[in-house]
């Protein structure tokens, strides 16, 4: 039963039924009672979507993530959902699979469904795709390293600084042959991570060797294959910095397959600090990223726009802090480093 059928049965217009639902005080008592009786007989409940059409609010937000199987994005998604839930909003999550076309399609669908706002996590979209969204005035916030951001509010970390700290740690231990396995994904974050790696080597005068820089798929498999290639180089790297913990897991697998020891023969540093990085053996040194908090801030900025609390027009950026977690995969000799 929909609102049209209710109106037909009651012999009134759709607008009258709508008024009974939304502003009952504006409807004559006799008519109101009659319509209310039909509504209760038919067990009709107005659906949220239709309500959205009426009130410009659907109580829903859209959330786009690049990969549903990657725990990094699940932690961020949880942050978004936690805030949305507190605001009594429902979150619709779309899994873009690093595919720009798929992301555009989902984005269009979310807008068609009239979500009140959208959080994009590590978006693959180009400036032109996003400009279209901007023109439609849909509240939108970008979280994590997105490919392009034509002036939306955003939440980020300083990836270059994070990479610099990780590589600096390797240099301090005494390694000079340091390789990087970087995710293939063309994001701002990945560019920054490679830049941080180069900066740090430059700073101490270690020559940058192109065979030590490899782009791999952002997955355990990608890390495995990349590390295998690195192990075949004549001058095998002493340490491998990876742009995600997932890549680092694959690297560790490849090193173990070669019967080499971590960290004695090859040291490994990851990025993200996902739960598992502290559970594998040896526990991985990694750049801790406040994933949940990034999601939380993404949603907070979004609700500020939805609730019209954002005062200024220029885009706001919240930068959150990364922190090097020193554990067992780099061969740092001093125990104190483990704690801080």
């Amino acid at each position, binding site marked *: 039963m929909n609102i049209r059928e209710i109106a037909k049965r009651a012999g009134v217009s759709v607008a009258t039924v709508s008024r009974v639902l939304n502003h009952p005080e504006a409807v004559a008592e006799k008519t109101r009672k009659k319509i209310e009786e039909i509504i209760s007989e038919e067990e009709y409940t107005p659906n949220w979507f239709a309500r959205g059409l009426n009130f410009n609010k659907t109580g829903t937000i859209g959330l786009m993530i690049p990969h549903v199987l990657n725990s990094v994005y699940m932690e961020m998604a949880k*942050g978004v959902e936690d*805030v949305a839930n*507190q*605001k009594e909003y429902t979150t619709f999550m779309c899994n873009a699979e690093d595919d720009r076309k798929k992301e555009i399609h989902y984005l269009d669908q979310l807008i068609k469904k009239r979500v009140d706002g959208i959080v994009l996590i590590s978006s693959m979209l180009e400036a032109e795709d996003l400009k279209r969204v901007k023109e439609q005035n849909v509240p939108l916030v970008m979280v994590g390293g997105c490919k392009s951001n034509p002036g939306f509010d955003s939440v980020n970390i300083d990836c270059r600084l994070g990479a610099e700290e990780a590589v600096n740690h390797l240099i301090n231990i005494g390694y000079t042959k340091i390789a990087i396995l970087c995710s293939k994904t063309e994001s701002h974050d990945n560019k920054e991570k490679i830049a941080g790696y180069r900066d740090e080597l430059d700073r101490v005068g270690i020559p940058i060797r192109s065979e030590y820089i490899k782009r791999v798929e952002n997955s355990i498999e990608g890390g495995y294959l990349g590390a295998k290639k690195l192990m075949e180089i004549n001058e095998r790297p002493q340490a491998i910095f990876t742009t995600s913990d997932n890549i680092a897991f694959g690297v560790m697998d490849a090193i173990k397959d070669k019967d080499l020891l971590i960290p004695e023969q090859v040291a490994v540093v990851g990025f993200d600090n996902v739960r598992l990085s502290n559970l594998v053996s040896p526990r991985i040194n990694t750049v801790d990223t*406040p994933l*949940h*908090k990034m999601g*939380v*801030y993404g949603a*907070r900025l979004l609700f500020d726009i939805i609730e019209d*609390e954002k005062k200024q027009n220029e885009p*706001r*950026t*919240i*930068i*959150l*802090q990364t*922190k090097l977690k020193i554990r067992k995969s780099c061969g740092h000799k001093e125990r104190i480093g483990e704690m*801080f």
Partner: protein
Amino acid sequence: MTETNFLGMKMKNPIMIAAGPWSRDGKSIKRCFKTGVGAVVTESIVSDTMLDVRPRIAYNGSGAQNIRLYSDVQVEGWEREMKIAKSSGGIVIASVSAQTPSEIAYLATKLEKFGADAIEISVSNPMWQSLEVMASNPETIYDMTKEVVSNVNIPVITKLSQNTTNISLVAKAVKEAGGSAVSAINTIRCILGVDIDNAKPTLGTYGGYSGAPIKPLGLASVATIAQSVNIPLSGIGGVEKHQDVLEYIMLGADTVQIGTTMMVDGPEKVKEIVNDLELWCEEKNISSISEIKGKALKNLRSFDEMKIEPATSTVSSVPCDVDCDKCIRACIYGAISKEKGNVNVNKKICNGCGLCTFVCPPKKLKMQW
């Protein structure tokens, strides 16, 4: 008599409740106000609340260690809590804690909107961060303070740490960034002790030390700031009685915050301190706290300026019937002896160090020349 105007906020007295679990939500802040204090600082509000470890507070009879005391109410929830806290009409200062300028500014703008009368930036906790407390670095403090100041229209107080080489540089950074005031000091990095039977450090990790033992450190920090930077100042650290409040004020503090005493001895004790301060001012005919502010600073010199006076401990034959030999044991130079109920100091041997005058329970010994 004890009314204080702090950063334009009219307070009944210069005593404030410091940030901590005793001011964790609206209801507990209302409880704090029942002590009669002039203002209450909320427990530090963070971006993303975490489950608190248990146990997290330890006490050894004089000092306390805590390992993580942040509000477990999300910032969204503080809209409601602030309303409750402010319902009794008192001054509520929101303590916010974060790792980056944009993050802390976001929290501050929210709390301003929810009705906080002022912001206290709390990035001086010695826990979690690293070996280096964020507030030990003047540049970091400048950036944090500046970002908050440029985003809110209420006073911004930056809480400083004693865990820094030169606290006056950090206080100067707050002033340069446009901060309205500084508060000092936050807890100090500590390990309360080690259970030697099990080789276990108390609470299992580093934490922040507070309570009476840190008062001398707080006093020194407050005096240093008062002498080097012209900025309103809230003194914190080990306040257990009204005399402690007065000590902080005489060394340059405008207001004084109480934390550990509220935690260990409860609100009744704080009420007592508030009343005692009122009485003291009445007795001494003090019409305004500002009359005594910084009064002790003129008697505080750098070591270079200290005058050398030929003082020695009191002359011979001081009758003393207390059954103790503390002065004799404490005399490094062997100048003190006790005979037939009289204490004698050999003036030729006494070198004027002064220690005996502090260890003597009935205060029989005095420095003279």
